[in-house]
């Protein structure tokens, strides 16, 4: 009998019951077949138990999940949806309700204050969102998980570092009376480099700045930002949000969209960055 059948037996690939019995008998009675069986089953078990797969990198997992979800325009079910759908499904209400809604929307649009800051639904931000990344990076700095790649207090040195590290856009590293420069980090995503720098105050407060050329945010390929926020910044506005002793500020400076996250006093951060 062909000894390769032992391999098939070990892999549970023998479907014929009589052949199976014949192989079992050979394993029990013939040394060579028993040896073959022991080797095949031993190696199979060891390989299964000890082989170490190379895991998919986290950035790939996130990128794939992000690309899949928007492609199908996943909308989480909302309680209101069934109400509206129900309302429209009733013939007696459908036309009148629709007219009221259309008029209401028109009125809202006409009465809207154009300078009103957008509301960012933070729970729906995806990892490629600049808002999300800025907050996360700041938390990482505070927790000591993200250290500067360059420690420097000279703005020109930091700008040269950005340039030599492959950041393709011009960067802005202003200096302030209240804070001194601490250092900088260049991050990489899909081969593109992004500039981050950090200031520190006399009381140990941290001011983190993440700047991205607006073209990246408009193409959405690597990094994104809510369209409403982008428009708001395009109009020259400064977006400021405070929460739990932390201030998050967005401002367009030159061609760059800058995200500033800090635990310094809000007014101080606002005065310094909104007036650049």
């Amino acid at each position, binding site marked *: 009998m062909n*000894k*390769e059948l*032992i*391999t*098939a037996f070990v*892999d549970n*690939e023998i479907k014929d019951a009589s052949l199976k019995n014949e192989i079992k008998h050979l394993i029990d009675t013939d*040394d*060579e077949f*028993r*040896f073959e069986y*022991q*080797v*095949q089953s*031993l*190696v*199979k*078990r*060891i*390989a*299964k138990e*000890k*082989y*170490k*797969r*190379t*895991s*998919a*990198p986290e950035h*790939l*997992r996130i*990128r*794939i*999940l992000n*690309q*899949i*979800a928007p*492609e*199908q*325009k*996943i*909308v*989480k*079910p*909302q309680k209101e*949806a069934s109400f*509206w*759908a129900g309302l*429209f*499904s009733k*013939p007696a209400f*459908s*036309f009148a309700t*629709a007219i009221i*809604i259309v008029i209401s929307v028109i009125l809202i649009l006409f009465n809207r204050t154009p300078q009103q800051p957008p509301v960012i639904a933070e729970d729906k931000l995806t990892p490629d969102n600049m808002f999300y990344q800025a907050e996360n990076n700041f938390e990482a700095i505070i927790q000591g998980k993200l250290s500067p790649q360059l420690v420097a207090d000279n703005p020109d040195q930091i700008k040269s570092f950005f340039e030599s590290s492959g950041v393709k856009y011009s960067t802005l590293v202003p200096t302030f009376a209240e804070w001194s420069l601490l250092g900088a980090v260049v991050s990489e995503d899909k081969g593109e480099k992004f500039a981050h720098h950090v200031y520190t105050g006399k009381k140990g407060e941290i001011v983190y700045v993440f700047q991205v050329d607006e073209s990246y945010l408009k193409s959405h390929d690597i990094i994104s930002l809510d369209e409403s926020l982008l428009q708001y910044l395009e109009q020259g506005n400064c977006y400021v949000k405070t929460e739990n002793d932390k201030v998050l500020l967005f401002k367009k400076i030159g061609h760059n969209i800058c995200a500033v996250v800090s635990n310094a006093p809000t007014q101080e951060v606002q005065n310094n960055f909104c007036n650049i």
Partner: protein
Amino acid sequence: MFFPFIFNFGLVVPDENQRQLYEDFEREAVPHMDALYNFALKMTGDSDEADDLVQETYLKAFRFFDKFEKGTNCKAWLFRIMKNTYINKYRKETKEPDKVDYEDVENFYENVKPSSTDSAHLEKDIYDNLLDDELSEAINSLPDDFKTVVILCDIEGFTYEEIADFIDVPVGTVRSRLHRARKMLFTKLQKYASERGYISKDEK
């Protein structure tokens, strides 16, 4: 009904089918990403290309997930998509198959017969002491044809038919390659065990 179609476009009613499809995909396909990436890395030999290959595989798989027959082997289905993607896009030049002298493999193994191998050498406990890295290294050092069948069968748990379909060879060839691949692995593992003193060198 009064003109319901005029306003239907404005309704943000969640598409329950699409939501369900996404949830099914997340549950059935996404957990196999490590297996696909691991194999993509073996195929391309480059982490960036493996990234791209896995990404493209998942995007295609999601696009056609409604065609996936529920209850069948999702991992095998993903591997098939990955193979086709690889052939169509990444393998710019037909790769010359590894020149493996199967006779050499057989002859080498013939030296390790029951008569020359202490039965104690077949105890699983001996090999349990080997490092995971040593086993992975032993598998990775196999010629491509052998490495592929061992990974697909022993690590990924595919059937012979699924493997045959994946590598485009008859089922008998899969069995034959596995048979030889495990023999080669056994000799490699014996060597490691011997070097670490788990088996006496004299006995080997």
